[in-house]
């Protein structure tokens, strides 16, 4: 799915420390995720999973240490890095006034590369074919989440950052996400996700980072 790379796709973190006000969320964190691997961020509520994921995407900033992509430290406003990542946050990034189809059209306008997957096929894949033209405000929370998941499938990017991707998804939705993740990993992608449940992504290796233990 993803073209072979000249450089190994490695996301690594060196001595990362993130503070939220007076509270230390993580101190001197180190990890390395390579192509085909997933990283699960664990921790109790308020441990800083979201903050860590935001730092990894470049939305937030680390107080110390570095995030490196293919060995290069992230620069501020790194458009190249942004072109290789997809992010699914707490909020879906779905406009309630627009239908899933219109939302996907708007999302593809924000991509650097032309879309890899047809919008209709993508909607079919996430099970929204029948609701493609209804305003998202009329859809259920789970269906809005599926619209957000569909966004991940629009383009082939290397890095997926998913913050609580299972929120509001039903059993079939969890299966869908698991399959999406496996397909992404088998294509040479990297996924970083924060969930409370364990996802069975076998045969792909899932690394773990546990936050909030040293507090």
């Amino acid at each position, binding site marked *: 799915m993803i073209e072979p790379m000249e450089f190994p796709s490695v996301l690594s973190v060196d001595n990362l420390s993130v503070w939220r006000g007076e509270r230390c969320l993580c101190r001197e964190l180190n990890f390395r995720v390579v192509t085909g691997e997933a990283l699960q961020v664990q921790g109790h509520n308020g441990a800083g999973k979201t903050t860590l994921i935001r730092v990894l*995407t*470049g*939305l*937030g*900033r680390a107080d110390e240490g570095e995030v490196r992509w293919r060995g290069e430290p992230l620069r501020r*406003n790194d*458009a*190249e890095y*942004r*072109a290789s*990542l997809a*992010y699914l*946050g*707490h*909020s*879906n*990034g*779905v*406009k*309630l*006034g*627009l239908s899933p189809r*219109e939302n996907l*059209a*708007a*999302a*593809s*306008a*924000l*991509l*650097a590369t032309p879309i890899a997957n047809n919008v209709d096929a993508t909607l079919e894949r996430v099970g929204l074919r029948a609701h493609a033209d209804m*305003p998202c405000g009329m859809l259920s929370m789970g269906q809005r989440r599926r619209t957000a998941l569909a966004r991940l499938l629009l383009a082939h990017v290397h890095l997926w950052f998913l913050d609580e991707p299972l929120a509001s998804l039903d059993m079939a939705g969890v299966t869908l996400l698991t399959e999406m993740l496996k397909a992404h990993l088998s294509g040479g992608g990297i996924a970083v996700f924060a969930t409370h449940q364990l996802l069975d992504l076998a045969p792909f290796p899932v690394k773990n980072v546990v936050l909030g233990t040293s507090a």
Partner: protein
Amino acid sequence: MKLTALIERDLRLAYRRRGELATPVIFFVIVTALFPLALNPEPTLLRSLAPGVIWVAALLAVLIGQDSLFKTDYEDGSLELMLLSPLSLEWIVLLRVFTHWLATGLPLVMLSSLMALLLDYPMHAVGVLVMSLLLGTPVLSFLGAVGAALTVGLRRGGMLLPILVLPLTVPVLIFGAAAAGRAAVGEPAAAPLYFLGAMLVLALTLAPFAITAGLRISLES
């Protein structure tokens, strides 16, 4: 072509929540209409006050409208996607402010000629009044957008925005009202209009960078 898709999205959204976007325009009409009621409705008095009244009402209406500029994007997570897009955020923001102005500022500019009639503003000068608003309200939109970007993460940013931005809008108000006032008494209004044009160019080129920086700061925490 990608950027036109973004304009299309924004205009479509604007159309679907047109009731909400009409609020600043209605505010503008009501405030302007209040003056003849509060003051002596004598035509000469109203005529002399008209440029100032219309300009101040337009200024406040535009700033009130800017509060909603990034609010829903912030709440539904679209703003994060905008920031994470590999496209230049400055361009995205420029288009966003422009489409927002199309939806809120432009109707206001068009209605101003009607409000001029209400205040007995001379008909021969209406062209200059509309021109001054046409050049000036986008500048106000951009200034308001800087404030909106800085306050988007705050819970009560709505009240903070005018306080932050109003002092910056003074030059626009001075030249805008001057253009309309001069035209009303038959004096040439080219100079203040040129100044407004210069401010518009300045806003178009510099404001997107300030708005971008403001959004990045707002979303960093």
